[in-house]
């Protein structure tokens, strides 16, 4: 197991290096002078030169990269001249809303997907199965931002049950906090729900065909006991993996949904920064979310390796 962990960590190094190169080049890919683009058309040459100097854009490219990389190790992601605060600070303030949203979305996805997936597997080939799997394919075909708009239309504009957009911090109370997050979490979670339901179904089908399930049935155990205690437990490992990966996708995918619902999370921070060409924030935000995404996936895979020895043996 230790070897497997070390191998996975070593594999991360070249990936992180290239990721840092890509993020670093965002600011240099802009056609023209990034400092001039950031300041807009009204800026004078003196202002542009001053910003170039502050951003270090007047130094050679290689030196700029080293400086930037060195800063990363000190949690220094640069300074946002638009927000007048360090980028790391701006990101820190945005972590809680995004995490709340992703957790709630994951919760919705899990509590609905697993029972539905089990139901489809148990009733394999019946109308229920076809209907559930058809619905899940439809669910996977609705982009989360579109579903968000539809939910706003139905529950906020027509029924007026929930707020159109906005955010209340947890300090304002649990219900006000959740009230604002229900619609965005549903919008964000549906695709993952469809994926988890499909994985639950296929994993359950595999287990339901095994001898020990037949044996459990032959012993006269009640069907729900066989399904939930004997089959689901053994089918759970691949389901757990897809849940782990889905959390990374949820954190990353929150960008568009947060923008629609005006939630002050990481995604909204990045999208807003694109509009005002605040490149240091875009770089810091994209790098931060990508790191989180990578770490969640790595953690999931390591956990998988820990639970199921076949994984770490097979890959060696």
């Amino acid at each position, binding site marked *: 197991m230790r070897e497997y962990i070390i191998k996975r960590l070593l594999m991360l190094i070249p990936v992180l290096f290239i*990721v840092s190169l890509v993020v670093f080049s*965002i600011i240099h890919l802009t056609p023209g002078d990034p400092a001039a683009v950031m300041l807009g058309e009204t800026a004078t040459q003196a202002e542009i030169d001053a910003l170039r100097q502050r951003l270090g854009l007047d130094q050679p490219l290689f030196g700029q990269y080293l400086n930037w990389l060195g800063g990363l190790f000190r949690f220094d992601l640069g300074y946002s001249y638009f927000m007048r605060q360090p980028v790391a600070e701006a990101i820190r303030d945005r972590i809680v809303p995004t995490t709340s949203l992703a957790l709630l979305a994951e919760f919705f996805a899990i509590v609905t997907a697993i029972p539905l997936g089990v139901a489809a597997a148990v009733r394999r080939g019946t109308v229920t199965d076809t209907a559930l799997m058809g619905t899940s394919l439809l669910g996977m075909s609705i982009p989360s*931002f579109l579903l968000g*708009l539809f939910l706003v239309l139905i529950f906020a504009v027509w029924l007026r049950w929930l707020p159109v957009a906005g955010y209340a911090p947890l300090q304002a109370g649990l219900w006000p906090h959740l009230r604002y997050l229900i619609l965005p979490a549903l919008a964000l979670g549906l695709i993952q729900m469809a994926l988890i339901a499909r994985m639950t179904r296929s994993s359950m*089908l595999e287990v339901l065909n095994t001898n020990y399930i037949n044996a459990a049935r032959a012993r006269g155990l009640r069907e729900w006991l066989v399904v939930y205690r004997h089959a689901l437990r053994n089918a759970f490992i691949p389901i757990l993996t897809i849940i782990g990966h889905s959390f990374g*996708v949820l954190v990353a995918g929150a960008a568009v949904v947060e923008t629609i619902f005006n939630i002050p999370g990481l995604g909204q921070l990045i999208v807003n920064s*694109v509009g005002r060409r605040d490149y240091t924030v875009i770089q810091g935000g994209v790098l931060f979310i990508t790191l989180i995404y*990578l770490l969640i996936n790595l953690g999931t895979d390591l956990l998988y390796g820990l639970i199921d020895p076949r994984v770490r043996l097979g890959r060696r």
Partner: protein
Amino acid sequence: MASTGLTIAPPRPSRRRGQTLRRLLGSRMIVLGGALITLLVLIAVFAPLISPFGPYEMVVQQRLKPPSALHWFGTDNFGRDLFTRIAYGARVSLGVSFTVALLSVAIGMLVGLYAAYFPLLDHVLMRICDALMAFPSILLAIAIMAALGPSMGNVILALVVVFAPSLARTVRSAALVVREQTYVEAMRSLGASSLRIIWLHIAPNTLSPAITQGTFVFAEAIIVEAALSFLGVGVPPPAPSWGGILFDGKVAIFTAWWMTVGPGLFIILAVLGLNLSGDGLRDVLDPNTVKAAK
């Protein structure tokens, strides 16, 4: 040994073509998905014949009118006919996404095949692919668009960077299997050039997984393109794109539900059609993965 080596010929895809076509048409998913896509393409191509309006034609008196016999999907905040804009928007959205899928397949084949054939190149190329795939796709697309600025060409470029790596991986893993086949070894011992082996003998056998994956990329590209245009960093207005119309619709969501429902419906139909086709293609062209998945 040498004489048997000479008689080994790669399987010719042409011999099975009729059979494959029959199997493709036998799949309900492909027929249904293909029909949806064909319908949308027809609407896009014949937009000027279907609609009496122009996509940029504004009638101020007709602002934000609900669906009617004249305006099937209603009108937008400038009094433009929404059905017309969505139909012309299909040209933009489907055109951009199809180009992205095509380029991703082409680049994916190039990278995947050479990576599978040359181990040293493999290490470099696959680490680059890993890194690009490490980014959440929507974020990478937003970041590239932030750097390049909104335009249709840049959307295509950004999405190809996002999606080509997954195709390279698909093609590579298929090519790795083919590379170990006896007939490739036979070709090599006959002195065939790498170029010939790669493109004439390995490439055709990676085409099925590449096309299947390409179909999913087509669907995914529609979603990401719409998201980018919705966020204002994709295809710039006034060009009609589904995401752009949704953006206008969000502003008017209290007064004009049809501006959200119309383009939303088209996006869902397009993505659903492609996902159905992709699932069907995988079942027919790639029976092994299906067995593993079921």
